């Protein structure tokens, strides 16, 4: 097991290096606004632009820039400075991570709390009214664009602009001073982010449960005289839930990497997703690089965790 982990970690590091290289190349190959010109302003003379280019090392050969960056990251944990604000990239990312993390954790808990019971009951009571209703509703939530859902939620329930003012609205995260207040500001975002995902997970779990319930060992469990409840919860769910774990790991990794951008945008949550859009618009390469790298790191880590977790969940996997 230990050797397995070590091997995976090394692969993870290699992957991070490759990801960094790809971002570098993309930035130079694809048309992006010249950061030096953006910095210099609209009336700047060419010499000034050139000097800024030198200051930002934009004219160094790409492999030199790449090597300097790698050295900085792996030996000093230094991700450079934002072109625009000159603040260290690392500081900005760490400052924004808690908001994204809070959003993700809350949404995950909420969507699991909804999806798991719904998925199980829908599978057990297949073709019942409840099953059909939840499956149709889930389709609706999956199809609804997140941004639209967010706006609808605001106009319905936000305490400032909503028809039924109950939940804190846009921008309330930044003004919240206590942890509890921050959680309050996250209620609507959690619900919106969880809505579509819960729908997907419920369908997935339902399908997985239906497959599992057809397995022979379920028949054996019943033949042993176990109460139906125990058959479902201990035998069926235990087996059906393992693919969900993989999905969850991937989703968490992606969300922490900035995939919650739409939710963060509509609710004005100063998280990592919002920052990456800003950085792309301003051609702030160190910021983009930093966020992508962090994102890749999260995805790698969560994939690793999921794989290890899988080995705990499914004994057959351990002996490979």
């Amino acid at each position, binding site marked *: 097991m230990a050797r397995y982990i070590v091997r995976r970690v090394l692969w993870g590091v290699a992957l991070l290096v490759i990801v960094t290289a790809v971002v570098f190349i993309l930035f130079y190959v694809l*048309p992006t606004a010249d950061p030096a010109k953006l910095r210099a302003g609209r009336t700047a003379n*060419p010499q000034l632009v050139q000097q800024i280019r030198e200051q930002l090392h934009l004219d160094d050969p790409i492999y030199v820039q790449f090597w300097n960056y790698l050295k900085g990251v792996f030996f000093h944990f230094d991700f450079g400075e934002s072109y625009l604000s000159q603040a260290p990239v690392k500081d900005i990312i760490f400052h924004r991570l808690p908001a994204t993390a809070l959003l993700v954790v809350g949404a995950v808990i909420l969507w699991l709390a909804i999806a798991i019971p719904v998925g199980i009951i829908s599978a057990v009571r297949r073709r019942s009214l409840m099953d059909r209703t939840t499956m149709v509703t889930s389709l609706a939530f999956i199809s609804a664009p997140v941004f639209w859902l967010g706006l609808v939620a605001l*106009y319905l329930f936000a305490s400032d602009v909503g028809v039924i003012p109950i939940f804190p*609205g846009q921008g309330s995260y930044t003004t919240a001073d206590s942890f509890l207040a921050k959680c309050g500001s996250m209620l609507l975002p959690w619900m919106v982010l969880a809505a579509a995902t819960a729908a997907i997970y419920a369908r997935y779990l339902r399908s997985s449960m239906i497959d599992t319930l057809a397995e022979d060992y379920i028949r054996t469990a019943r033949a042993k005289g176990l109460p139906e409840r125990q058959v479902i919860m201990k035998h069926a769910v235990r087996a059906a839930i393992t693919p969900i774990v993989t999905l969850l790991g991937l989703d968490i990794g992606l969300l922490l990497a900035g995939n919650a951008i739409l939710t963060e945008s*509509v609710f004005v949550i100063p998280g990592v997703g919002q920052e990456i859009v800003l950085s792309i618009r301003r051609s702030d390469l160190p910021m983009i690089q930093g966020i992508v790298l962090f994102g890749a790191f999260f995805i790698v880590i969560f994939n690793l965790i999921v794989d290890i977790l899988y080995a705990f969940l499914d004994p057959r996997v351990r002996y490979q």
Partner: protein
Amino acid sequence: MRLRWLRLLAPLAAVLAFAFVLTSCGDSSDDESGGTGATGSTGIPEEFQAPTAAPDDAKSGGDLVVLNEGDIDYMDPGAAYYQVTYMLDFAVFRSLVSWAPDADTDPTPDLATGEPELSDDGKTITYTIRDDVKYAPPLQDRTVTTADIKYAIERSLLPGVANGYTSTYLSGVTGMDEAIKAAEKNTTEAPDISGIETPDDTTIVFNLDDTSAAGVMGALSLPVSAPVPEDYAKKYDAEEPSSYGEYAVFTGPYMVQNDCVDESGKVTDENCSGKITGYQPGEEIKLVRNPSWDADTDFRPAYVDTITFQEGFADPTSASKKILDGSSQVTGDFPPSPTVVKEVASGGKYDPSQMVVTPSGGERYISLNTQEPPFDDINVRKAVIANSDRVALRNTRGGELFGPVMNHVIPPLIAGFEEAGGLNPPEGLDFLASDTGDPDLAAEYMKKAGFKSGKCEGSECNITMVGDDAPPGRDTATVFQDQLEQLGFKVQFQPVEHSLMYTKFCSIPSQEPDVCPNVGWIKDFNDPQAFFDIPFYGPAINPSNNSNWPQLDDPKLNKAIEQAKLVTDPNERAQTYAELDKQTMELAPVVPWVWDNDILVRSDDVAQVTNLFNGLTDLSFTSIK
């Protein structure tokens, strides 16, 4: 000889009187303002006009919140070059001269004790400053001196600060060229500008080699003249780029919270470094009261206790509603969406006074590349302008309140506007006479250009256009594309991201397409010089960062531009620039389509005051009811 205010007031009064006369005669051939009580000179209905003074019973206290979509550009006052940043800067940085909310032509003395002295030959400007302005913590024991202002200007030449306008407007200052060269050589130490002298702590003298004093005085009204103590800032300026923005010291009634003060502006840490803690880029900026500020030394009243900028509001509709329905909030850098504007304008749920419309001092036009066929032929250009339905183009921004149709270069409230024709095009330019388009006239011009059918024929008609990929810029471009195609052009339109459009296409002459539909210009200060000096001046064409998008290089016009900036008498100046305006429009280099208005909304309980200079809320004069 002192510049006499009266000499300025007289023509100003005359201009305004003229405008009122025009209104009362009901002459509004170009008045699309719709609604009653419009004033001729801005086209803005009365109910939306900006309050430029605080109410007599303005209350002290409270927390004002400004909602922004994006961020300021730089916290460093030497680098800031953005109207929204100035909104912040006017509240936290005092400069040599600044702008009171209702000052529309001449700046207001701020650190200066009064009007500057201009020598007879116009080549020496002398300012005297107050001796009783102290810096905010951590430098609360230090008084502002003119040496600090001199250093502020000198450091702006460093590539690590990269000020966008100093070298342009102060080019006439003695020793400027040498200073610029020195900054290129030694990028970590601010150069000395020999032409700026500080004989004592309260006197600063600008020696010019020419008579470009008006430009110099204008530039000094911008945050570049906010004082920066050299011994404090040196170490930050030695870094590349400069990190002074993280440690800036403040002189205004408010300061951005740093590690020296708490939320109420009380000093909490004696050994603080001055590191700014109240600025989270892209997220929030927190302003608190400056404990060193003395109300007696300032024209600003400073009513509210704290001001918070909240950033990241990507959806203008929901953000505007949040403000309109909520309390103590105003919009910052985004206009409300057209639907919200319509809703407020129609009355009903919201009081129309919750929306304020002000000319922004900016304009938008569509540039035609005069260096390449087919637009190298002036008749073709005139045809395109005559054909354009410019009202339709303006409406892509959201409607009448978003600005009157542009008819010449100088925008409303800038000196020379009325002389140039006011809201109407200059006399005698028939291709600008109709703002909804005159196809017959257009056909005539095409015929003059050699296209017998009155429409474009042949391979010259394949033209390229690069514009914004997001609304409303994209909408403007597509509407214009239709209009061009009516004239027989075949347009290849490439939408790209906004900053990409500028830095990789429209600002590089060798890459520039035939049409750049989403360009324009905004004032630097209330003087018409900026609108010609770069956007229409031949020698200003530069190969990698060009802002003369039509690539206009007419020798006569170039000479006229060079001479105009040397005129110092305000009356003469207005008249000279009005003529320059007509001369520029005669060359039909661009399709002018809107003089932008700034539209903002406020919560019910905010007694908002607009600063006419940038059309945005003046934080030092606004109060909570």
